[in-house]
């Protein structure tokens, strides 16, 4: 086992252990346990989708993905991504909910910017009697997003319900405990999180770069790919709110996501610059997500396209698996244009593990 894979396994175990230690009073949805696909993974070509929906970055997230091109590995994921949102690593006492929910452009950049790094571990490939060493690849990415539009009527209903419920505890003659207030308000808080995403556009911009490391040597690094892309997305408002229970009707969400991406691929001698334009429709319930995507690729090379179907399933509150099947861009894989990826993701829950000092 290479040092990199040992590190990946150790990190996965640590994250899983951390996740077990956290209290999880409510069943988590698939969307809650997923570590968002980071730009660094996208640039390495190991992400299960080419049109990723904008997501809220956690303070720290970790993902492991295993691709079908791996010739060995004994089932251990070969690819590792780590994403950090620096803004949330320190206290923000002056940031009100109103500023968080309707941020200015600059504020939105600050609170959504995340930095990701990823590795695609090198391996040995045997063809007949010849064994060749495939070098390791590293990627670094950056992304940020901006939420547009006013609060939806649904969000306003949930907010009014929260305020009404909170007021009963504020005016209680004796001081209520954190536990009883948490139990009463948690449904409203979770409903609010969902409602904030519905009926609004989110524009995410990302950039990433990858480098190949011959002989696993940092001094022999060579830039491989650079890319920049923008991802507008919209989640249709489909839920209704029950103020008596503080919950939203549990209907599967439907998202429309589009992407426009420019790439500079230095791994080929010609046709290095390309533009991808495409869209994805995503249907997602609490445990299952199914999506279809289509991307057209233009540039100074042959016009090609990718069409695929992606399925994701939440195994536990901390683990989900994903599978992608379809037709890949021509020339993306020397073994053909079949696209088949299987991934398993470990996550530390919906919250970061980094906390302020205990009072």
């Amino acid at each position, binding site marked *: 086992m290479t040092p990199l894979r040992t590190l990946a396994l150790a990190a996965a175990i640590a994250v899983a252990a951390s996740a077990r230690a*956290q*209290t*999880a*009073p*409510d069943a988590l949805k698939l969307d809650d346990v997923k570590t968002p696909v980071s730009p660094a993974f996208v640039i390495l070509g190991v992400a299960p989708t080419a049109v990723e929906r904008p997501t*809220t*970055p*956690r*303070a720290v997230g970790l993902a492991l993905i295993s691709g079908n091109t791996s010739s060995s590995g004994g089932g251990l994921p070969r690819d590792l991504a780590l994403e950090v*949102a620096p803004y*949330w690593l320190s*206290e*923000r*006492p*002056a*940031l*009100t*909910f109103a*500023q*968080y*929910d309707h941020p200015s452009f600059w504020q939105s950049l600050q*609170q959504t910017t995340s930095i990701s790094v990823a590795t695609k571990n090198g391996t040995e490939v045997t063809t007949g009697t010849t064994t060749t060493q495939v070098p390791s690849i590293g990627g670094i990415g950056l992304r940020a997003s901006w939420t547009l539009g006013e609060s939806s009527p649904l969000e306003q209903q949930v907010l009014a319900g*929260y*305020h009404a419920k*909170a*007021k009963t*505890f*504020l*005016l209680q003659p004796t*001081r*209520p*405990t*954190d*536990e009883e*207030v*948490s139990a009463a*308000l*948690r449904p*409203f*808080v*979770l409903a*609010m*999180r969902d409602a904030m995403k519905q009926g609004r556009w989110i524009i995410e911009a990302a950039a990433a770069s990858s480098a190949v490391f011959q002989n696993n040597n940092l001094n022999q690094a060579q830039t491989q790919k650079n890319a920049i892309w923008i991802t507008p997305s919209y989640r249709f408002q489909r839920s209704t709110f029950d103020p008596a229970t503080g919950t939203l009707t549990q209907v599967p969400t439907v998202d429309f996501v589009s992407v426009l991406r420019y790439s500079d691929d230095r791994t080929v001698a010609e046709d290095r610059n390309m533009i991808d334009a495409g869209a994805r429709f995503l249907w997602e319930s609490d445990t299952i997500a199914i999506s279809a995507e289509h991307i057209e690729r233009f540039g100074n090379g042959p016009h090609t396209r990718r069409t695929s179907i992606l399925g994701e399933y939440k195994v536990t509150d901390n683990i989900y698996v994903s599978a992608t099947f379809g037709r890949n861009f021509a020339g993306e894989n020397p073994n053909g244009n079949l696209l088949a990826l299987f991934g398993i993701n470990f996550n530390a*829950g*919906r*919250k*970061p593990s980094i*906390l*302020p*000092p*205990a*009072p």
Partner: protein
Amino acid sequence: MPSQTINGDTLTATYSVGTASSILISAVIGDGQLGDSAVWLDGNLLTTGNVNHFDIGSAGDLRGHELKFRSIASGLNPQTLRTCVTYFLAGGTTDDDYTLAKPVASDAGSVVYEATFQLV
């Protein structure tokens, strides 16, 4: 004077109202979290909800009385477990602010804060 940060959910302090014609108070729930506050003067409710530059009266009317805040901060923000509330008192001898901070015990949980000020 002071700008203080306290890791905890309860505060007792004094505030010198001086000779102000009006004392303004605010309670700011931070970290992007959702929350509300209520304010009492000697047990009489003054206001609830978003307390922002609320005028509680002149120094002469307030000296010797007790001002009490109760706030609830709920963990709406999925990026952090932290919650905090900052109580501002302005117009007196000095403008003071106190930040109380405490993480929620579990995801989407809530914290109840209380701060009591003796107005002198």
